């Protein structure tokens, strides 16, 4: 029992994914403990989204292993990954356009993890709870096309949360939001986290990383460049060089 308790929830060991001859993700290893919020940052093209695709089963690994609660999930199909409790959002939101906001969330609750799967009637009840959690309850009956961009991002999160994940992968949920909208979205992430969900998020917005993450992993050219507390990582000279740029680093310090 003590062994299982000590094991990380998610463990990446030398994860590698190649496209053509190029390694988009090149031997990435890190661990996430249950209940953490971990941020992934790094330049565009560093392999962040590819890494998320590997975890959620959309890409097959070319090397390494991904372990979920101690068991390998490499090569497992995406719907099975969802069933064991790993949910995700997409960088460019992918709502089910012909459905209402409520139906989108309900579909998540009909499928998703083993904890979520239920018939339409209960799924709609659960959808209402989730919409309240992300602040979309007033727009439950709206068609997706009537939503603003921040609300579409909320819906993307709502659908993933409705699958009752233990680990939620968020791919740039804050992109395209202004500072005030980001603050609101941060509240939403904190609220989801408070329900006991581990969060792994990709962001380019540093106030998000600093604001909610206990730990940040920096990827560059598909490899881990740095890892640690956000305040420390963002002052790392290599990270400034590869990712933040001098001007940003100055602004961050001031």
């Amino acid at each position, binding site marked *: 029992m003590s062994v299982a308790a000590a094991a990380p929830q998610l463990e990446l060991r030398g994860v590698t994914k190649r496209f053509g001859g190029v390694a988009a993700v090149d031997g990435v290893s890190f661990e996430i403990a249950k209940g953490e919020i971990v941020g992934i940052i790094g330049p565009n093209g560093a392999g962040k989204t590819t890494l998320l695709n590997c975890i959620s089963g959309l890409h097959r690994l070319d090397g390494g292993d991904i372990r979920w609660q101690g068991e390998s999930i490499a090569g497992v199909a995406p*719907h099975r990954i969802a069933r064991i409790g790993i949910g995700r959002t*997409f960088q460019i939101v992918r*709502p089910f356009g012909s459905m209402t906001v409520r139906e989108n969330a309900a579909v998540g609750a009909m*499928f998703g993890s083993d904890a979520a799967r239920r018939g339409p009637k209960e799924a709609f009840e659960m959808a209402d709870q989730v919409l309240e959690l992300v602040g979309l309850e007033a727009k439950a009956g709206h068609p997706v096309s009537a939503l603003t961009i921040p609300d579409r991002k909320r819906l993307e999160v709502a659908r993933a949360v409705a699958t009752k994940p233990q680990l939620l992968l968020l791919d740039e949920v804050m992109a395209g939001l202004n500072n005030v909208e980001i603050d609101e979205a941060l509240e939403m992430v904190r609220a989801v986290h408070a329900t006991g969900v581990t969060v792994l998020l990709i962001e380019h917005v540093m106030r998000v990383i600093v604001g909610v993450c206990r730990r940040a992993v920096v990827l560059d050219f598909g490899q881990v460049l740095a890892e640690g507390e956000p305040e420390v990582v963002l002052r790392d000279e290599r990270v400034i060089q590869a990712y933040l740029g001098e001007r940003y680093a100055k602004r961050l310090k001031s």
Partner: protein
Amino acid sequence: MIAQGLRDRRWRRIFLIVGVVVAAYALLAPLTSLDFAQSANVPLLADRLWFRLATYIAMFIVMATAWNIIGGITGYAAFGNVAFFGIGAYTTGMLIAKAKWPFLAALPFAPVVSALFAALVGLPLLRLRGHYFAVASLGVGVAVGELVQNIDYGGQPLFGGASGLFLPIFSIDNRGLFFFYLMVAAAAVAIFATRWVLRSRFGYGLIAIRENEEAAAVIGVNTTSYKVAAFALAAALTGLAGGIFSQWNVFINQDNAFPIEYNVQMILMALLGGTGTVFGPAAGAVLLQLLIQFLGGSLPISVDIPFVSTAARPIVAQVILGLLLVAVVIFVPRGVIDFFGGRSRLSLSYLRRSLRETSL
């Protein structure tokens, strides 16, 4: 918005009334052909021609409604569903003609064999997307018909070959009435199946696949098995129609069991009536089949088409159907049910919105 809602409701009511009247007429008219009705001097509302036409319409209601499950709800534009019709027809036909089974024992095998075949070809085919799937499914539709005609076994054509397959006549009083009601029952099964699908978890999974397959997968929809199941369900219903057809028509061959034009017609019916809806494909089937029969000159009310000889009418009918397909896709991409029940009808903004939605 409120005024629109009212008009919406008004159209819905008109649709409902028209639908109920047409359905009641279609279901009750055959009874006037029964002996006791005739001896009571009830006017005959359904003669042989009526039965033939009405049974064809019911048959297309089955096929269009079935196509809607894979094409409309799941979003996979299957262009070869006639293969399932033919397989159903030949399954029943072979069991009756060669194995000497009674019709009602042979009929259940039509949907079963069609569904199994769909599952088999669906596994590789449904990995393809967009036009690739459409073209590949069309290929299967054509290939199956050719195979059925040309497979030999021990020097003999296995399925009757080019000369087709003759079935013993199913002897029952009021044959026309029997097969009409049987086909209507199949249509009811198809419509109820669609209704069930659209309200079930299964249906939400299929719509999710249509809207975005990867997003469906990462919320836990087993996309492969859902797609295959939808394809097999569509095939089972289409095969059921084929099975009934074989005994009704008594003779089947490649031409009447695998007519390529059915592929387009069932899609056109579903589009015309409204894909993804419960009753849309059925409404489209009634409208289009009446039009086809009218253009072909087999309706009692017939109008001469200027400059077109009687012999050329079927060809002209095809041309008109083709033009209609273009018009439907441009003007009523969401079907007549939406067209009349929706907000604005023959307006520029409707056309613009339609064009925008279909061109994306």
